[in-house]
């Protein structure tokens, strides 16, 4: 794989970085356009600040999805709901 020809887009001073940061959220949430996906795959993935931000974002989202423990509803909650509905 070859890095993009323009080395300036791979630095911390890239003027597009704020836009890329916004797009990273769309990418992890499945809300990105095909153009955004292509841009990240072809350019962002090779850009140090972009790739670092994207990976951190992906890690945080994965942590929330997989580690936030869902609680079991109290056993009597279902019965309590149905009982109240019957009285309506």
């Amino acid at each position, binding site marked *: 794989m*070859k890095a993009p020809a323009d080395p300036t887009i791979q630095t911390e001073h890239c003027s597009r970085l704020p836009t890329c940061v916004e797009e990273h959220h769309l990418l992890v*949430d499945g809300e990105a356009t095909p153009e955004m996906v292509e841009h990240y795959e072809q350019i962002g993935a090779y850009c140090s600040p972009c*790739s*670092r931000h994207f990976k951190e974002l992906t*890690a945080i989202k994965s942590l929330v999805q997989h580690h936030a423990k869902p609680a079991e509803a*109290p056993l009597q909650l279902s019965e309590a*709901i149905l009982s109240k*509905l019957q009285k*309506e």
Partner: protein
Amino acid sequence: MGAEHHLDKIVRDDAFVKEFMPLMKQLYNFALKLKLDEDEASDLVQESYLKAYRFFDSYAEGTNAKAWMFRIMKNTFINDFRKKSREPNKIDYDELESFYNSEEAEHKVKSDLRIDMMQDKLGDEVTVALNALPVDFRTAIILCDIESFTYEEMSKILDIPIGTVRSRLHRARQVLKEKLIDYAKSQGFDTTESHPMTNES
């Protein structure tokens, strides 16, 4: 006529139970994240189901039942909160201020005994970090990352523009990153930057 009405109610009740009772666990978890208290979460769930039942005729069968119920629960939560604000002896002013000012303050909800108890009981870093978020941010993260609603669905549930949905997610994740990035690394997540490769001749 009485028998016919009774039969109609049975059919209606069956349709309601079939459509909405499977969502109970998800709704309870959402309520728990809003209230941070098991008993209050149960009360909120029951109240939400009652309201959904009363407005069942306005629900279009085959549409997004989950989003509809979550919206009802969100509105029930907010209405309860505002009702308590008219009973000054019963509200937690710190929590009220945090709720309404979360967009500006970006600070943790001030700890109270219920939050401390919940944190000790659950003992999970991610849950602790989530519960420490202002409720607006916490709601956005739960609806997006745990319940997998789209931005558009979240916009309708929360009755806010999609731009505000994005803004809340962005800021909530920034706060979570500050709290959890070291934990993420300890769990083996790759958060290192890619190094630009040199051009091949």
